[in-house]
């Protein structure tokens, strides 16, 4: 369920569009930032707000890789291995983080496509905040900083959460 504040925000978002159906994606981001993943209850509420069915919301959101269908912890760590990162150590960073956080429920490590941060490759995002010019060690340090609260993380969908 959306909190009162988020429910108000959701209604505002829907009202921006000539057709409420357009708001499915933005509301899914909002719900995910709130709950940490896209829950079935959230999809039902989004369906009601967007004047459609929960099945439609599920069908649409499952197309997009940013929506998580199961809890993903507090930190989504997205490591790029596309062609520029590939030749300067991206895959090694992915492997290191996957291994290091394999049993850590707070950290979800995923391989992603080009993040448009190739100028300072290799690159990753932590809850959609960019980190560039990485080594396996510096990448681990950054994730640990977020874990320890030395860096402030966005929501798991990249929104600013209060």
């Amino acid at each position, binding site marked *: 369920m959306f909190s009162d504040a988020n429910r108000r925000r959701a209604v505002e978002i829907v009202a*921006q*569009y*000539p*057709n409420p*159906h*357009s*708001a*499915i*994606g*933005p509301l*899914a*981001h909002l719900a995910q930032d709130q709950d940490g993943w896209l829950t079935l209850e959230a999809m039902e509420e989004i369906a009601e707000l*967007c004047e*459609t069915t929960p099945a439609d919301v599920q*069908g*649409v*959101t499952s*197309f*997009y*890789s*940013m*929506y998580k269908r199961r809890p993903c912890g507090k930190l989504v760590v*997205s490591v790029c*291995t*596309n*062609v*520029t990162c*590939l*030749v300067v150590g991206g895959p090694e960073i992915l492997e290191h983080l996957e291994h290091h956080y394999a049993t850590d429920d707070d950290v979800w490590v995923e391989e*992603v*496509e*080009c*993040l*448009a*941060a*190739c*100028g*300072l*490759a290799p690159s990753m*995002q932590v*809850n*959609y*905040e*960019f980190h560039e010019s990485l080594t396996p060690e510096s990448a681990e340090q950054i994730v640990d900083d977020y874990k320890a609260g030395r860096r402030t993380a*966005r929501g798991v*969908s*990249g*929104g*600013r959460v209060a």
Partner: protein
Amino acid sequence: MSVASGKPIEETRIVSRRLRDYPDDSHTIERFMATGGYEVLRDVLKAGDPSAIHAHVKASGLRGRGGANFPSAVKWESLPADVYPRYLVINADEGEPSTFKDRLLLERDPHQLIEGVIVESYAIGSTLAFIYIRGEFALGYDRVMTALEEARAKGFIGKNILGSGFDLEIVVHRGAGAYICGEESALIESLEGKRGMPRIKPPLPIHVGVYSKPTVVNNVETASTIPHIIRMGGEEYAKMGLNRSTGTRLAAISGHVNKPGVYELEFGLTLREIIYGIAGGIRDDRELKFFLPGGASFQWLINTDEHLDQIYDIDDITAKLGTTLGSGAIMVYDETTDPLLVAWRLAKFYAHESCGKCTPCREGTDWLEKILYRMSHGEGRPDDMDMLLDVSRGMSPDVMRAPFTQTTICPLGPSPVSAVASLQKYFRAEVEAACGVAAGVAR
């Protein structure tokens, strides 16, 4: 002896001027307005003549910076007369591998984009514009949202803007991780709250777009350029560049160069001047092996005088070398790079990002990825290169032709075929050696 373009080997900063001059606060409305921002908007609203904007853009020769290089004024002319509402949609989905120029404009000069959106909306008669921004661009989204609030507070957005009678709302819509939503009809589907799958064309979005209304889709850099064209005058703008490639464009240079980054270049430099002059040459004193002059989807070039002396001109490079300048990415690889590995990773990207609507793309990209995986990981078979060409024919019948031919709804399907054709053209011997042909290894 290398050929020189005769142009100074330096940047020409138009859309990147402010963000380079004021790296600390180029995104703020204070800096924007202190450096001439929103003056063009004031002027055009005061003049009250949308057709004058069109005349400038037409005279400028501006071509879309999203990859297809379509003349912007011609797109506007295709809008069906008297059909309202009509929408402007800014494509800020930037997801093409190694393209990273729009992100810079979004994060570092959002007001420049917003001024472009307002001016362009006024020119085409749209009262609702959308900025579809890649979901992963969290900072870009924050910056654009803050800029919109600031612009609204100054009366540049909303009802009766600066007393002109012109109304405009701008809605920012976040994507959610799907490269295909950069394709304009998929973007429109996504904006309507659907799966981002390209539409069969015709009808084109300019006729039947968002909510079935006429829709202009433009890239971030395209819209950001429009106020500069008005400020300079279309004809002045057209004096920059070369032939039908007028003005400047942001080139995102990455890979094994000493100075990777985004550079604003006047069209007309040679590729050698760009790679060795602008981007500082190859790292660690190594040799250049191959490079992708127009992003991930088009054919590659190699270290020959013919290729390096080629001029950065949209039409000339297509006429002479069959490739294109695409999205403005230039990816550079040194002598240590395995071209099979790059081809495989690109195929993996396209296989992952295929929306699945057309069989040749859904199946073909997967096949290419699988075959290229084994080829690039020491498990290649002697006839694999021919198998690649065979599979490619399903997506792009005239495999070696560049730009590619297409059997699919959108150009994503045949895009990885560009890499296959490039392997065949330039690296056949190396690929065969890697796949055991020379050693006579049987399957």
